[in-house]
């Protein structure tokens, strides 16, 4: 293990690879985005607080610190649009309108979970909300999201697929294959890379040459932008252009959001003590908290009210999840094949 480095929030500044931002969210939109970020934060913190009780018995990847990309991208998505996600999926699920009760129940392995408890944190789904699923095999849902966009195009639907993934996922060949084909077929896709500088404990230099992930867009025939991923307005602005392109039939775009994970890769704890990243780095990013960056556009009193409302909602979700039954033994052999068993 090498020496832990120090990369400050501004070190990888914005880069325009053909995708420029347009405008800023209106006040009401900014408030809604803030509310989403805050809600994601509070849900994740609650999960973190209660994880040690050992009742949420599944690998759980919290996205605290990374709330802006889901909130700001999903702000552009309409009910009919689709989201595909990865292992760090809670933010994407919630921002797209996934049912909170069903998510918490899923983490508790309960029959009322969004996947009947069979999936856990790594396999959230809410089809009613257009949240098409998450899966932890790196980059694997990227091509699936492209396929959904292709179906939409074939059917002449006005429907966009937003696909979220991490910086590590861009090292998988299938990511490149999927980008290539999305460009060839000019599909309504927004590729959203949440670049939090790390893949588990590995930093960028051992994994990728020094170039923006967004620059891969150019190679694959689509515009890209690297933005401050902790600044919801910045993400919102490029996502707006990407969305416009997708809806107009101009094809896919890629957005790289520079951000930072606060907790350990998997699990509820902080982890700077491990030594793979420095406390200085952590502190610099914590100061660049998306909830601080975005605070200017929402009145403090509103935030207080929001917080209370959300906490009440979370209380209820946990209560319900904890009281819900586990799946019945019969569920083990249910849904192996569609139509085969009830």
């Amino acid at each position, binding site marked *: 293990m090498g020496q832990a480095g120090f990369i400050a929030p501004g070190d990888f500044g914005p880069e325009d690879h053909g995708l420029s931002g347009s405008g800023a969210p209106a006040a009401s939109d900014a408030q809604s985005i803030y509310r989403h970020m805050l809600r994601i934060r509070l849900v994740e913190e609650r999960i973190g607080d209660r994880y040690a009780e050992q009742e949420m018995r599944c690998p759980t990847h919290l996205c605290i610190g990374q709330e802006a990309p889901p909130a700001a991208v999903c702000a552009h998505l309409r009910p009919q649009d689709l989201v595909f996600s990865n292992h760090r999926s809670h933010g994407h699920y919630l921002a797209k309108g996934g049912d909170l009760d069903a998510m918490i129940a899923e983490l508790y392995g309960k029959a009322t979970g969004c996947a009947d408890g069979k999936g856990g944190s790594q396999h959230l789904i809410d*089809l009613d909300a257009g949240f098409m699923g998450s*899966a932890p095999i790196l980059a*694997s849902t990227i*091509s699936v999201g*492209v*396929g*959904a966009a292709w179906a939409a195009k074939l059917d002449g639907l006005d429907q966009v697929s937003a696909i979220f993934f991490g910086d590590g996922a861009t090292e998988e060949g299938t990511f490149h294959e*999927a980008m290539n084909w999305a460009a060839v077929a000019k599909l309504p896709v927004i590729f959203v890379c949440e670049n939090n500088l790390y893949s588990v404990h590995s930093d960028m230099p051992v994994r990728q040459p020094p170039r923006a992930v967004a620059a891969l867009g150019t190679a694959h025939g689509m515009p890209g932008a690297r933005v401050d991923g902790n600044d919801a307005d910045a993400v919102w602005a490029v996502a707006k252009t990407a969305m416009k392109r997708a809806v107009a039939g101009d094809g896919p775009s890629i957005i790289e959001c520079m951000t930072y994970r606060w907790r350990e890769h998997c699990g509820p704890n902080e982890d700077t003590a491990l030594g793979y990243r420095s406390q200085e780095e952590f502190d610099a990013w914590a100061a660049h908290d998306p909830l601080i960056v975005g605070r200017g556009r929402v009145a403090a009193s509103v935030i207080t009210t929001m917080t209370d409302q959300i906490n009440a909602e979370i209380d209820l979700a946990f209560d319900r999840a904890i009281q819900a039954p586990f799946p019945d033994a019969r569920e083990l052999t249910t849904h*192996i094949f569609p139509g085969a068993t009830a």
Partner: protein
Amino acid sequence: MTREIKYFQAIQEATDQAMAADKDVLLMGLGVPGPTGVFGTTKGLQEKYGPDRVFDMPSSENAMTGVALGAATRGKRPIMVHMRVDFAVLSLEPIVNQAAKWHYMYGGRMKAPLVIRMIIGRGWGQGPQHSQSLQAWFAHTPGLKVVMPARPYDMKGMLLAAVQDDAPVIILEHRWLYNLTGPVPEHAYTAPLDGAAVIREGTDVTIAAASLMTIEAMKAADVLAEMGVSAEVLDLRSVAPIDALTLNASLAKTGRLVAADTGHAECGVAAEILAIAGESAFKSLRAAPRRVALPPIPSPTTPALADLYFPGARQIAQEALATLGRDDSVPEDPLPEGRRWRDTPDPSFTGPY
């Protein structure tokens, strides 16, 4: 009298009819719309159904399988074609980790009705990377249906059934079956994806086989008949699931088993057949069951070794005799005049594919 067509024509016809019946059926794969149409099986279909529904793809087996899965989750029914099983090895992640599991792992909320056709190569020096027969991997994977039709009738009916099925279905087609002819009704019909068929009745020994090995088993049964042995031939048709009931019923009659498969023996379909027989028909068995399968060796290219590598009717008959305690040897079929090698299915096949 039913019309007779070739296996590859049955594939083309089934695809055509599936696409005519349901506009959500799509056809994709390297060379699918090309001039040779994947050995004739996709010929004329882009002209008929347009480039939106029938199309070529980049050499991106992994992601394009994910693309098919994604489309399937949105109501499409893609048929994906791989010219060789060996190429599909690149797509195991989306097939096995994803498509096979999405229905279960999302609590039944997702469906992945996709059909993946894979062609098993053999002969004319296909060699180590163009003649693998990996059905066992798929049969080992819960959530997949895996079929290996041997005859044109089944091929057509099972492909039509696969397209209608809401689960991912893997169809393995042996290249040497493509020119075989059989009765095939002209109308669209389905054949079940999960049952074996006794295609020749016999009393002394059961030969359970699939795909090309079913054809070889039928030849072996002829040879055995001449040697005084009555062989029953069971065409498995599906290797996941394997129809244990039909197998056991046959074993109850014959008490002897030869399992013949186009893949390797170890952890292969032939092993599974023996395991089923041991577990559930032990009392019926009167002699040690035998396997006819590829030896644990990569596939050699030169015909001088390939001819020794691939087992066929002779080896099946030999093993059948062994179950009867006979050690007389089955003669090798003489090569037809002018042919030196057994590395092509018939003389019309003059390479390179």
